[in-house]
């Protein structure tokens, strides 16, 4: 603590923390693949063979996912642990969210390959940015220090700003990039100010473990010495993270950015970025500041209710499908916040809340990736056909594709025998277990209002006649595979949810 007073004593011996490289391998794989892609593509004169970039990205995503399963196994046997001088942790929630991010990365890589060919853009940078964004997301979900969390957040966000603006031929894409950049930078500044105030109140930025915010709060919350500073700091942290998860009233960027960004990137944003931000919210506030829960739980409650109601109702009045899906992703964030609110109660029902959040994040990541994969195909070359009328007659033109989209939309609406139903059910039961009945009832009502939107798209696909001038939707192999994987996952988890629920419950209890 007195490093400033005695700089001379510190210089002769430098204690470096133990790194534990083995547990860092998922991050290293993503980083390595990203660097190989960027450097390799820059050095080769004619670029690599088409499809190789996406293959490498997909392989890295699978490898990182498999490595996280291996780490999961060792967590089960040896317990959770911390890495790099307690800056990162390997525990249940971090691995679960990490696997969700890797799944999103795999699906995004498959869809993007066909998309870039169709739009005639040749850029390995897109895959490099995907890998870096996923790396940032993994760091966020595994961070045990607010500064590390901030760095992960920025690595994720900066990569996403570029990705949103990456379609150089569409002015909408650049506009989306600019809007996302300004509001993202704005929210990061709020988050960082929150970090500074929490540091000022507790003297540390470490979240859990010895000499951390959690232990400091357990000691000083009675004395109330820096109470005001702490509460303002936590409020600013929540504002920053609420921007990232697109919770109302911090959602205003979402529809524009989702609509303007290249559609595969939108899918990646809705899945990976949301998963990472919820992982960060769990880790930074819910798990590390339980002593302060009476101060921040009402804020989460209000955010959840506003997000549910406004997300669901505004989705209904949209005519652009990407905007509809943006508002639907806002209302899904509301459902996850219901789970966070349940997790905030602590104890046994809190664990159930964490498990429901993890389950929701994984199933939603797959679902929304699949939905935007279909939307990518329907957008046709130019990525512009996203009006509701572009979906008209899809059921007759491409019955399998329309059926796949119908599965995704029904799952998002929460129809039984799909993963979306199980996810909504587990979130709402967690809220009811925690005696948050009001929020559970509002969540159910929001699900009903939201269902209208999904049915509107389905009706448009199957019951309305197609427009004759529309270019026929083509289904390339990679995107088809991504949609197939997502449909299979959605239905398998819908029919047999037990194993995944068990896994999520297991993850929620294995905390560092």
């Amino acid at each position, binding site marked *: 603590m007195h490093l400033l007073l005695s700089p001379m004593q510190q210089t002769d011996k430098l204690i470096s923390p133990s790194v534990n490289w083995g547990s860092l391998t998922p991050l290293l794989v993503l980083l390595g693949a990203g660097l190989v892609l960027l450097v390799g593509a820059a050095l080769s004169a004619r670029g690599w063979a088409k499809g190789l970039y996406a293959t490498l990205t997909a392989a890295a995503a699978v490898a990182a996912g498999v490595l996280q399963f291996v780490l999961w196994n060792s967590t089960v046997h040896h317990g959770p642990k911390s890495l790099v001088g307690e800056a990162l942790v390997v525990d249940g929630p971090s691995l679960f969210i990490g696997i969700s991010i890797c799944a999103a990365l795999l699906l995004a890589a498959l869809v993007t390959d066909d998309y870039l060919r169709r739009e005639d853009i040749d850029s390995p940078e897109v895959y490099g940015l995907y890998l870096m964004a996923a790396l940032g997301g993994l760091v966020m979900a595994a961070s045990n220090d607010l500064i590390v969390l901030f760095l992960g957040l920025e690595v994720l966000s900066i990569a996403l700003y570029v990705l949103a603006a990456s379609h150089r031929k569409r*002015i909408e894409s650049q506009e989306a990039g600019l809007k996302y*950049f300004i509001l993202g930078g704005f929210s990061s500044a709020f988050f960082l*100010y929150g970090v500074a105030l929490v540091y000022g109140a507790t003297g540390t930025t470490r979240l859990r473990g010895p000499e951390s915010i959690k232990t400091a709060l357990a000691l000083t919350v009675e004395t109330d010495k820096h109470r005001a500073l702490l509460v303002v700091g936590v409020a600013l942290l929540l504002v920053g993270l609420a921007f990232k998860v697109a919770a109302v009233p911090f959602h205003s960027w979402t529809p524009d950015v989702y609509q303007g960004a290249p559609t595969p990137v939108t899918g990646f944003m809705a899945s990976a970025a949301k998963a990472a931000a919820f992982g960060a919210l769990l880790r930074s506030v819910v798990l590390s500041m339980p002593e302060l829960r009476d101060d921040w739980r009402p804020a989460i409650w209000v955010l959840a209710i506003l997000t549910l109601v406004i997300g669901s109702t505004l989705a209904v009045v949209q005519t652009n499908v990407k905007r509809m899906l943006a508002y639907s992703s806002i209302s899904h964030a509301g459902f996850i916040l219901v789970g966070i609110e349940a997790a905030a109660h602590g104890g046994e029902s809190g664990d159930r809340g964490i498990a429901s959040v993890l389950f929701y994040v994984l199933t939603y990541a797959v679902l929304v990736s699949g939905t935007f994969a279909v939307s990518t195909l329907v957008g046709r070359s130019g990525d512009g056909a996203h009006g509701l009328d572009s979906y008209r007659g899809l059921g007759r033109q491409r019955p399998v594709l329309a059926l796949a989209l119908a599965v995704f939309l029904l799952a998002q609406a929460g129809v039984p025998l799909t993963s979306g139903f199980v996810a909504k059910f587990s979130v709402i039961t967690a809220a009811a277990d925690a005696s948050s009945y009001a929020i559970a009832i509002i969540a159910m009502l929001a699900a009903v209002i939201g269902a209208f939107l999904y049915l509107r798209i389905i009706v448009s696909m199957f019951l309305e006649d197609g427009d004759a001038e529309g270019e026929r939707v083509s289904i390339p192999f990679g995107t088809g595979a991504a949609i197939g994987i997502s449909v299979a996952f959605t239905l398998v988890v819908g029919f047999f949810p037990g194993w995944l629920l068990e896994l999520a419950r297991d993850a929620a209890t294995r905390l560092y």
Partner: protein
Amino acid sequence: MIAAADVTPTWYLLLAAALFAIGCTGVLVRRNPLVMFMCIELMLNAVNLSFVAFSRTYLDIKGQTTVFFVLVVAAAEVVVGLGIVVAILRRRPSANADDIAELKG
């Protein structure tokens, strides 16, 4: 040494809060993307100032090292932001946030 008043870290914290508020207002009211970037930078640097001030109160080096991380992040952010603005300026003569409004609904 200072005759009038003893300058404590609290003064710096108040200054930082004021700078943060100025930056925040700037992002909300100014319409030029470049000025908006500058305001975001002002917010980040206000945070840096409070990190250093807290670091001084605790006599703890961690707050000061954090500033380096924030500086690097801010630099990376500006590179990306200016890149996007240049990409937009190539297509449009003026970069005004109100003109960039293709997306709405």
